[in-house]
């Protein structure tokens, strides 16, 4: 029973970090139709900046989270403004360009911060454990679950209940009509891209408690994000959340039961779901 509960909590907190990683990508891919392969690299960039502020400078952890998000957001904004804006609806070019940025960001991080991995870190105020009905569980993990839930609700609200969300959904369906109605779609796209990149960098600092920060993290993280949006389906927050939780829980149990086969369960789930439903669990056709 205790094994089951611990694994479930591990899966939930892991899944929530995965959700933080995939949420931004899911928004960009689903809403703007842009494949941003540099998403994982932005996550890593956020992680490095967070590490610098929280560990090297010893400042507040939540400040580090904010700065990490901000830096990633600004870099993302730069990529969108300077390059991706001109590659609207050209998938091949988007893919190649953003993967180029994976190389560029990764190599610059390696240059600046060196090749040795940074050890995991978190808010020192949260280093204890909660007592959940006799089960001791680290506070930071519980906080991660809370943050993930809040973010999921926020993004769902943003996409489905606000004017900005309505504009984005309309822009996805008929760009010309939306522009013709006098709405500045470019500015809304900018905002969304910044938000998604911000979430990536933010997740980079939050997720550093699990993996630390290391120089080839960009690709690893991208892979997680891609598996999740494949499983959950492109284009909805609910899909990303479902995919992240399924993968997180499957991985936690897989890791606990068969430690040597760690990554394979993720792929297994992905392949099974794709054979059953090629557009993902909650995906819509794009």
């Amino acid at each position, binding site marked *: 029973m205790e094994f089951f509960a611990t694994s479930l909590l591990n899966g939930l907190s892991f899944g929530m970090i995965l959700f933080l990683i995939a949420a931004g990508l899911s928004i960009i891919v689903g809403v703007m139709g842009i494949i941003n392969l540099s998403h994982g690299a932005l996550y890593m960039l956020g992680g490095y900046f967070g590490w610098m502020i929280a560990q090297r400078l010893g400042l507040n952890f939540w400040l580090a989270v904010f700065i990490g998000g901000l830096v990633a957001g600004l870099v993302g904004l730069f990529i969108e403004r300077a*390059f991706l804006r001109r590659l609207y609806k050209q998938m091949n070019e988007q893919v*190649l360009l953003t993967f180029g940025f994976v190389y560029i960001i990764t190599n610059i991080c390696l240059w600046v911060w060196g090749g040795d991995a940074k050890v995991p870190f978190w808010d020192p105020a949260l280093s204890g454990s909660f007592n959940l009905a006799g089960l001791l569980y680290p506070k930071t993990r519980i906080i991660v679950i809370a943050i993930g839930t809040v973010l999921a609700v926020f993004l769902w609200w943003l996409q489905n209940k606000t004017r900005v969300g309505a504009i984005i959904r309309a822009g996805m369906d008929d760009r010309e009509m939306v522009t013709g109605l006098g709405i500045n779609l470019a500015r809304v796209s900018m905002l969304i891209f910044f938000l998604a990149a911000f979430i990536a960098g933010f997740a980079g600092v939050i997720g550093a408690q699990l993996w630390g920060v290391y120089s080839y993290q960009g690709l690893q993280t991208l*892979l997680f994000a891609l598996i999740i949006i494949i499983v959950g389906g492109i284009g909805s927050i609910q899909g990303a959340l479902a995919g992240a939780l399924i993968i997180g829980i499957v991985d936690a149990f897989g890791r606990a039961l068969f430690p040597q086969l760690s990554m394979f369960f993720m792929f297994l789930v992905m392949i099974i779901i794709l054979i059953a439903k090629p557009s993902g669990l909650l995906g819509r056709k794009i």
Partner: protein
Amino acid sequence: MEKDKWEGIRRLWQGRLGQFAPFIIVGLILLTIPHFAHADIQLMMAKSLAFATFAMGYNLVFGYTGLLSLGHGVYFGAGGYAVALLQYHLHIYSFWMAMPLAVAVSMLLAAILGPIVLRSTGMYFLLLTFAFGELFYSIAWQTKFMGVLSVAGQIAVRGIPGIVYPDVIPGIELTSTTFYYFIFTGFVICYILLYRITNSPFGHALVGIRESEPRMQALGYHTWRYKYIALIVSAGFSGVGGAMFAWNNAMIDPSHFAVGTSFLPMVMSIIGGSTTLFGPAIGAVIVTFVEYLASITIRARWPLILGGIFVVSVMFARAGIGVYLARLWEKVRVRYGNTKS
């Protein structure tokens, strides 16, 4: 009198000779330079031909069929590993065993993965092929069968070192020069095969699928089957490229399955021109040459340069250098062919 003498040559120039002259010139350059060059240059040129084969095979799916695959590293790695494992486990060095095995393994993998990845289209196809590349990467990392674990600095690397040149003719050992000519022959054979494939009805059907799949379906083509066969054929050429690369590089590691390898033929195709057959080969030569220059000057910053190449090729060279060159040659031919007055 004089006019008649030139007339024949002009005819020749406007016909077959003009068409093939660039190939003959490039062929002569590729044949003569390595003979006088340093072994390093020979190695680099052989590598560029291996990647050229890979990129041309990849382009059958990417440029001709219009499927954006990020998983061709799987087939490239499979070809390389087939050759390497044969040497490593069974100590078989014969070319005549290794090459068919490399091709067969790559094509078999494509035949198995094809039905899964081809269920999806567009974005999902891309993501799925990407994920499969990473799956093979992690398999190659974690299985003992796939080579020895060695520690370089802080990072442990699993891979198969010490791959030697194959035995092509029993009793004759290949040197770096003869190996280069051997690779060159392989490249030419692959080029001719791909030329025949892309100019066949099958190749034209692939282009039709790229332009409009619903229309091809309406015309009665079984498009899924065409895409599946294109993927398998392309995987075969990727496997050949992988095997050539493994011999040339003398070492293969799991990263050759992964997305970093899969992106190379894509960037080569785009730089060189994905709508032409020889474009990817030109791209391969350019990328390998820049990599060589980087490796003798600023090795640690090569990924930065490579990323820069990606960005520049997308923003400024989207039509592809190969297309420009073909147009330029056409101009030269018209200019110097039609001067009769």
